[in-house]
């Protein structure tokens, strides 16, 4: 693969509220290469959005608190940048699309103007040039540029999301963070938007981090996948690793929870129990309470990440075939 | 353990737990309690009666006999302030209670039934609000004659539209909630729905506004007394005291200053408490 543009190591984020601490992200390692689309999959509260917001440095502090780790963007340590330096990167080099297109646009500004404004903020160009670029962007996301002067309420949900994407891509960012970009949309519109993101990505060579809870979306437009649970990456690999050889019990459980279209199953096999309470950070594997294969060591020892095949990383004591050897070697690792 | 945690986490105890964290609100609450206590115990703690005149010592500064001095008739200012708390607070509480009851009823009916009834009530309130408040109360006080009771009625009626409007808006949001439909689908009648589901869920902002309304009522009452349409002499309502003092503002400003401070303190305390309540009752801040 090409150049590594993002490298996250040991990222830890906590939310301090009302005397309680929520351990949202607990040591996440991720890297992203140029032109790659990485899917972050996980359920509500797994920490996906917090990771994205950390990269953009738009976490509200307080209550959020960055407690460690590093986010390296092309050799620059993002977490050390001043707010002024960050402003130059944000929206320009790294852009973000939010889940709800209804609230991401300013209802009292013309749609085209909002795009032009984003462009003008980051580039020293004339107003006319910015407008021209904004029109091009609209066309690119499939909205005729005659609609430049219309207001958000005149657009449907899918079109608003296109405008939001146009805004995000207006400055040719190298990295696009898309936080559930299609969750609020209908399936047929979702298909349109996903197709469009895919095409644009190929055209512009943008790297994308796609946050979603929908494994179907991941399968249709990602290159690699990180499965997030309890603020940690529990499994990471390319599509084949995750979809054909899911190894972490949580990943397997996720697939079993999904009703499938192509099989006549009569009963789903859901994961038992609920998401762990992120207010108590216990030792051991975060998934162990819901895991059918949990053993004694899962409750006390946090599993190491294991590379079970090149590029396929799993955070589980029993990821490797030779189970017997595991608890032993773990002891030496502590 | 689970049980315990769940029992202690809702309704009033929860609001109280959160209110306790707001220092300003807690201090305000103690200040208000103190003022109420003073009002209730005024005959016991006041050194003199409020109309007792010390004719030898009019317009005097503070002395051992009169801690805060005397007014032009030689009445003890401290005693008058202590008694004044009774009338000012009574004005605030009773007038607010009147406006709250009328406002909540009108607002609930308008909000729940909507349509023509809503239109009728709201247009009436619109017209009513178009008349300047002070003019309205002045007219009412003039028609009924100036007295404490009539001032309270005038104020109470005057504050109805604000409460009604707030209640209606609040009901409109709650009315659309699915749990109202859910209740209908298990055969809940309208009255049951309003009393059991809608009002309890819609009342929080109204309670906050009522708390702040007490302060406003005291203020407006003081204004009425100041222009001579409220409490009549020799009753020592704070606004009336300022009114009395206005001729001596130059020579003896403390005469107006003391009741002024009392009004300010009370109104401020009500406002801070209202602010605190708003934060404590906001379910979005629940965690």
């Amino acid at each position, binding site marked *: 693969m090409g150049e590594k543009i993002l490298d996250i190591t040991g990222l830890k984020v906590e939310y301090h509220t009302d005397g309680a601490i929520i351990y949202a992200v607990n040591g996440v390692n991720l890297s992203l290469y140029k032109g790659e689309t990485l899917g972050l999959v996980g359920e509500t509260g797994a920490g996906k959005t917090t990771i994205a917001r950390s990269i953009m440095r738009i976490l509200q502090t307080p209550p959020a608190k960055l407690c460690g780790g590093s986010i390296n963007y092309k050799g620059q340590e993002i977490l050390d940048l001043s707010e002024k330096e960050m402003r130059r990167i944000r929206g320009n080099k790294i852009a973000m699309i939010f889940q709800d297109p209804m609230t991401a646009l300013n209802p009292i500004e013309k749609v085209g103007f909002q795009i032009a404004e984003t462009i003008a903020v980051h580039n020293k160009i004339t107003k006319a040039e910015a407008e021209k670029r904004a029109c091009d962007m609209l066309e690119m996301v499939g909205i005729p540029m005659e609609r430049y002067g219309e207001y958000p309420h005149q657009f449907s949900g899918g*079109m608003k999301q296109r405008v939001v994407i146009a805004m995000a891509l207006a400055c040719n960012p190298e990295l696009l963070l898309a936080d559930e970009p299609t969750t609020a949309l209908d399936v047929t519109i979702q298909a349109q938007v996903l197709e469009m993101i895919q095409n644009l990505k190929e055209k512009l060579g943008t790297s994308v981090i796609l946050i979603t809870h929908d494994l179907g979306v991941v399968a249709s437009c990602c290159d690699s996948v990180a499965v997030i649970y309890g603020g940690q990456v529990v499994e990471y690999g390319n599509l084949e690793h995750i979809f054909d050889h899911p190894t972490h019990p949580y990943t397997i459980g996720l697939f079993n929870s999904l*009703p499938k279209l192509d099989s006549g199953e009569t009963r789903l096999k*859901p994961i038992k129990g*609920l998401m762990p309470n992120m207010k108590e950070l216990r030792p051991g594997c975060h998934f162990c309470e819901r895991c059918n294969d949990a053993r004694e060591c899962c409750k006390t020892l946090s599993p190491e990440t294991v590379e079970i095949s090149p590029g396929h990383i799993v955070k589980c004591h029993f990821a490797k075939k030779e189970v017997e050897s595991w608890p032993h070697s773990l002891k030496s690792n502590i | 353990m689970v049980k315990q945690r769940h029992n202690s986490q809702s*309704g009033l105890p929860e609001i109280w737990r959160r209110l306790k964290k707001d220092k300003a609100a807690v201090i305000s609450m103690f200040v208000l309690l103190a003022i109420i206590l003073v009002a209730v115990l005024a005959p016991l703690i006041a050194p003199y009666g409020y109309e007792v005149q010390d004719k030898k010592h009019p317009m005097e500064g503070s002395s051992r006999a009169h801690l805060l001095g005397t007014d032009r008739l030689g009445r003890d200012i401290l005693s008058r302030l202590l008694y004044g708390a009774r009338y000012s607070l009574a004005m605030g509480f009773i007038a607010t209670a009147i406006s709250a009851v009328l406002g909540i009823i009108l607002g609930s009916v308008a909000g729940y039934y909507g349509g023509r009834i809503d239109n009728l009530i709201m247009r009436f309130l619109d017209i009513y609000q178009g008349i300047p408040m002070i003019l309205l109360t002045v007219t009412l006080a003039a028609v009924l004659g100036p007295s404490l009771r009539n001032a309270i009625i005038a104020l109470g009626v005057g504050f109805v539209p604000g409460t009604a409007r707030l209640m209606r808006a609040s009901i409109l949001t709650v009315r659309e909630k699915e749990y109202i439909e859910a209740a209908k689908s298990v055969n809940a009648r309208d009255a049951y729905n309003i009393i059991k589901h809608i009002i309890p*869920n819609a009342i929080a902002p109204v309670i906050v506004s009522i708390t702040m309304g007490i302060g406003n009522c005291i203020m407006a009452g003081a204004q009425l007394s100041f222009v001579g349409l409220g409490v009549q002499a020799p009753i020592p309502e704070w606004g009336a005291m300022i009114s009395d003092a206005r001729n001596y503002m130059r020579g003896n400003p403390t005469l107006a200053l003391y009741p002024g401070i009392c009004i300010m303190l009370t109104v401020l305390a009500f406002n801070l408490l209202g602010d605190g309540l708003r934060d404590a009752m906001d379910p979005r801040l629940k965690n």
Partner: protein
Amino acid sequence: MAPLLEVEHLKKYFRAGGDRQLHAVDDISFTLEAGKTLGVVGESGCGKTTLGRTIVHLIEPTEGTIRFEGEDISNPSKKDLRRLRENMQIIFQDPYSSLDPRMSVSQSIMEPLLLQGKLSKAECREETLKLMKVVGLAEDYENAYPHELDGGRRQRIVVARALALKPKFIVCDEPVSALDVSIQAQILNLMLDLQEERNIAYLFVTHDLSVVKYISDDIMVMYMGHMVEKAPSGLLFENPMHPYTQALLSAIPVPSIHNRKKRIIMQGEITSPINPKPGCRFAARCRYAAPDCAQAQQLEEVERGHFVSCCRCHEIKKAQAYQTN
């Protein structure tokens, strides 16, 4: 024996200002047998939610008949409605807004029983605890409040509440859309178990096609108030006839990296259902649209139990078969 629920030519129009009418549900007919599930799928604004609410009389129908156990309930008296509602319940989409935040778990579940007034307070409480057990809620949560619970548990409360009156029919309006997948599967399984135990019929409204396939016996596809296709669950997925159904099925992202099918990307979005013209409402977005489509479409039974409302469906099918060969 008459089917549990028969709906004939049901229409619900909303006034949309002036003489404009929003055709939310337009001429829908179907029958539902006891203990079976009819899935209703469609995109937002297609009228599927209105359909469910009209049947349980949270919204009054404009036209058409609804029969429940053979009895016409299109215009029930207040008394009939009270009786009916004990047999028909509705589960809403959002467990966050369908529970009164000021009522504890047991109060919420008990409410229908208390309103019914047949049982004493103590019996109600006993019944409530039983219901909590049935839906898999630990007794510990009896006095908890909704905001302390996660979405899955809240939806269990909603289900328990709906079961309280022992209904024969439940409208489920997107009951699992707001839940995470692992929790969603738990609730779906619960609903299937309950159906089996208590022989409840479901009208299962959702936009999620994989969920609907899993839970339904029959599936109805709606588009802008019209029923465009209805078939037994397996048939619909094997042999979708209506171009809209085909596009809808192809648009679902499948969580698998094999057998990737070609997505049919539809142009445009749903247009306004206000004062629609007669004829096929999908025609504006349909790539097979022809002049015939402007005429009112007839429902045709193309195979046993499989109804399609498209005058060109046979032609289209033939053309598609030709293309793949």
